[in-house]
């Protein structure tokens, strides 16, 4: 069950352990006073402001760009267009093998535009309003080209090409065979086939993607202030495209107003604004408008599935065979990794062994997709849960029974899936039972049949999602063996200052996950102090925070990779503190414990206060052990215990596998299709919780994101490639009125693979999408309606009911 939820203050008697306590986030103190430091809060002397001109066409040749009128506007300092970008940079690197490696992606459109909203030119001016005025004065002549927005039409040989050099819109295709689906199908009693569609929606963090670049010609130093959530990984993409001196690039993030994965792909803007700063010789700040945020991509992976499921009569699943078509939009920013990440959760929470995945990554004239919360896994998990429910109905098996029959049990953990993922721990049946108990399943079932007699539609939906976390980059070698990434790592330092207080830094680019607080709790336990004695460097500065090429916040992993790095550094520091104390006190290190800011020789009255130890290390080093290096600052780099893919292309793609089970009760008005969530329960298990209140917050957020996507939000394009939901006017971002209260419960299956039993969490596996689809289908059961699209608005429900009535009428 969920741990003690009352917050803990340090004035109270300190608990035995700070880990596991809901310590009030220290970050909140500045944020509730409006004293956070977000990118737009920064002003530098002599700073310019940028604005970006975007293409009105989804696909068009750029015939000419005339910037003369804009240049003449007083206050305009510099303008760059695709021509400048083509001269100054190479296209960004991708991860696809030939011919998909010929996808061309620059920070501004070069030669042609490939989606409506693509950046075409950028202006730096002395004021933001002047930069925006200047944008209106740039004259671009476009020659519109045929547009392709339907992903299946894009696969046709005669389709217009989005990326001409590739020679096809299918930029990556590969068939994966785990187990033997053909054989499994030959033993099946039934094969159920369905076409399913997982829709496109946005991440929409409240703070958009912003950049403040400051190039100093005198030193060659380029400082990029940004809110990218994985900038030290992106630095590789930036340096490879620009050829800039990597050792003279400084990247800084401060408070970040949400990310949800979308902010990973802001590296194109980091290059664009840096180019403006270099050209202007002055710092340049760019603040993305909301409309730009929605139209310029950062959408979740849109996928179409042609899926077959092979089953025994009794509901035992033998295998799944799916052709998946991922609509990547116009560019591959971090793609097609999203089309691959099903390998993390290949059989979902189920035991079947045979899986064939025919994966197609296709470009269209839409905004590029991005690694959004639940990235790549939620699409696959939704597909599995959907086809299982549809099959269960066909076999007339209860949806609970089919799940219970096929769930991997806790006794089977750690469990190796067909694709080699090693599920570390968990109890899916228990989570479902708990969720059903909390919702009051039998009572709702009874009410449902009573209500149906009166024409009232109630549906109960269930779903289990796996939140695989701490990724092994070697998974990208399944796309191409040549890809120069593998493993996972994090680096941290722990320092005892000259007065015996502690500083810790880890480059995690947090944006709402309370990393400063959680790190202080972990370090306090290790070093026998209070969290307040541990200052965790806020934000990230690549010149002060130790980082690796894997640093950042993504792939549900701080509680694993970040904390392992911090633990490693703290334990090295602890060892040295103890060695100094032992030397000074004439004791053996084994007898010394650290407690209440002192090194204490157990079973004696001998002790040494931390400040005295610190003083020896930092300014009285002749009293140190003679062979000891002075100072008390330890650096540790954690390496994920991973392997490369084996000869059958199996690998463990993440280290931990948190999971959530949700149950929802919905009511649908049959006259209007209006949907109301009557009750919502979320059971989560991410192993040991470092700070239960922070974990619960993540559960709430993931629940809301998924509900928002399933019944409200959609990035819908018309045939000409215009996004029809490009502002908050029509992109239905739900408020507190639409979102229900969530009842939560935490189970604890500690991970055997991490020091504290923690697992990464936060993405939630897209569980609400599974659950809401299931609930709607259950509510509409009297009409025999199947839910085959992840987006189910009242309008769609209304049309489904109308269509089914028509069928019945016939």
């Amino acid at each position, binding site marked *: 069950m969920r741990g003690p939820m009352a917050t803990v203050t340090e004035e109270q008697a300190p608990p035995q352990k700070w880990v596991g306590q809901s310590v009030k986030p220290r970050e909140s103190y500045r944020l509730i006073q409006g004293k*956070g430091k977000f990118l737009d809060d920064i002003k530098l002397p002599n700073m310019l402001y940028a604005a970006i001109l975007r293409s009105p066409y989804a696909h068009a040749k750029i015939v000419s760009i005339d910037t003369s009128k804009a240049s003449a506007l007083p206050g305009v300092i510099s303008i760059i267009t695709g021509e400048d970008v083509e001269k100054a940079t190479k296209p960004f690197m991708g991860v696809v093998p030939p011919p998909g490696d010929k996808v061309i992606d620059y920070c501004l459109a070069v030669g042609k535009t490939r989606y409506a909203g693509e950046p075409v030119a950028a202006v730096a001016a002395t004021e933001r309003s002047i930069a925006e005025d200047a944008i209106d004065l740039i004259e671009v002549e476009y020659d519109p080209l045929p547009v392709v927005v339907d992903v299946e039409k894009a696969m046709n040989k005669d389709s217009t090409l989005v990326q001409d050099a590739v020679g096809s819109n299918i930029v990556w295709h590969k068939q994966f065979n785990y187990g033997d689906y053909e054989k499994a199908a030959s033993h099946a009693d039934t094969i159920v086939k369905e076409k399913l569609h997982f829709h496109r929606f946005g991440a929409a963090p409240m703070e958009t993607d912003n950049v403040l670049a400051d190039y100093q010609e005198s030193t060659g130093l380029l400082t990029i202030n940004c809110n990218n959530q994985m900038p030290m990984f992106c630095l590789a993409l930036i340096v490879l495209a620009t050829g800039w001196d990597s050792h003279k690039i400084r990247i800084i993030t401060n408070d970040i107003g949400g990310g949800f994965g979308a902010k990973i792909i802001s590296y194109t803007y980091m290059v664009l604004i840096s180019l403006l700063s270099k050209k202007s010789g002055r710092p340049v700040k760019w603040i993305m408008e909301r409309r730009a945020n929605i139209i310029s991509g950062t959408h979740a992976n849109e996928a179409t599935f042609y899926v077959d499921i092979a089953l025994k009569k009794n509901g035992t699943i033998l295998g799944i065979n799916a052709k998946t078509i991922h609509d990547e939009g116009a560019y591959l920013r971090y793609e097609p990794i999203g089309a691959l990440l099903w390998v993390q959760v290949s059989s979902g929470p189920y035991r079947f062994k045979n899986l064939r995945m025919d994966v197609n990554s296709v470009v269209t004239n839409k905004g590029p997709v991005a690694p959004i919360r639940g990235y790549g896994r939620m699409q696959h998990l939704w597909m599995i849960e959907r086809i299982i429910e549809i099959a269960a109905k066909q076999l007339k098996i209860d949806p609970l029974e089919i799940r219970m029959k096929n769930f991997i049990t806790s006794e089977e953990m750690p469990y190796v899936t067909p694709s080699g993922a090693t599920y570390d721990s968990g109890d899916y049946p228990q989570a479902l039972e708990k969720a059903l108990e909390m919702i009051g399943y039998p009572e709702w079932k009874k009410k449902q049949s009573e209500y149906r007699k009166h024409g009232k539609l109630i549906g109960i939906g269930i779903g289990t999602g796996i939140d695989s976390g701490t990724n092994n980059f070697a998974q990208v070698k399944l796309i191409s063996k040549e890809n120069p990434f593998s493993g996972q790592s994090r680096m941290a330092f722990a320092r005892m200052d000259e007065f015996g207080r502690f500083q810790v830094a880890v480059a995690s680019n947090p944006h709402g996950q309370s990393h400063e607080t959680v790190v202080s709790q972990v370090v306090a336990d290790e070093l026998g102090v209070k969290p307040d004695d541990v200052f965790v460097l806020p934000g990230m500065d690549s010149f002060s925070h130790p980082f690796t090429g894997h640093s950042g916040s993504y792939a549900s992993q701080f509680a694993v990779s970040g904390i392992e790095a911090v633990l490693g550094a703290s334990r090295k520091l602890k060892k040295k503190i103890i060695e100094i104390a032992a030397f000074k006190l004439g004791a053996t290190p084994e007898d010394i414990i650290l407690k209440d800011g002192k090194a204490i020789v157990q079973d004696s009255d001998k002790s040494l206060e931390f400040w005295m130890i610190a003083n020896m290390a930092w300014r009285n080093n002749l009293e140190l052990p003679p062979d000891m290096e002075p100072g008390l600052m330890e650096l540790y780099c954690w390496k994920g215990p991973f392997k490369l893919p084996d000869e059958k292309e199996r690998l463990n793609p993440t280290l931990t596998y948190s999971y959530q089970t949700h149950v929802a009760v919905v009511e649908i008005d049959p006259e209007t299709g209006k949907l109301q969530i009557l009750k919502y329960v979320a059971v989560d298990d991410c192993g040991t919780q470092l700070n239960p209140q922070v974990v619960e917050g993540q559960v709430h957020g993931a629940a809301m994101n998924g509900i928002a996507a399933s019944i409200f939000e959609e990035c819908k394009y018309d045939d000409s490639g215009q996004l029809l939901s490009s502002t908050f006017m029509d992109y239905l971002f739900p408020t507190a009125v639409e979102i229900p209260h969530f009842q939560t419960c935490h189970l604890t299956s500690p991970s055997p693979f991490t020091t504290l039993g923690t697992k990464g969490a936060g993405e939630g596996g897209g569980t609400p999408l599974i659950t809401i689809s299931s609930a709607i289908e259950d509510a509409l059961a009297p009409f025999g309606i199947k839910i085959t699209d992840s987006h189910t608005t009242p309008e769609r429900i209304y049309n489904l009911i109308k269509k089914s009535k028509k069928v019945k009428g016939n």
Partner: protein
Amino acid sequence: MEKKKIKLTINGEQMEGEAEPRTLLVYFLRDVLGLTGTHIGCDTGHCGCCTIIMNGVSVKSCMVFAFQAEGTTITTIEGLAQNGKLHPIQESFWENHGLQCGYCTPGQIMSASFLLKRNPNPTEDEIRRGIEGNYCRCTGYVNIVKSIKAAAEKMQSK
């Protein structure tokens, strides 16, 4: 465009600055007066990140021109804590984890302060309707509602 002088009272202090006729109040607060606690999250008046109290009423400061604020009395998030002591709504947001990234938080807190002034003891439904104009992407609103409820209790017991 020509700039004009604007005088107003913010957080109990007389302030003045210059702005173009087209400058929105939120930009005037942030860029001219340096009060960066009020945030911007959209271009269309939906998200509520920029909510302030103007002449006693909650206002989205991106929906008001700076010159319209001439002579008004404004409270922003920076003016809520008094003499170094947090406002009970701020305390409650902190205690109940009513925020994560904190970007929408100033707007949420300002809306909550207006709600509790009109309705010191709101039901859950009334709280949800009271913050309908404030988007949050992190919390699912659960802990925001909880925070406002807790603040109401705290303020009533005083």
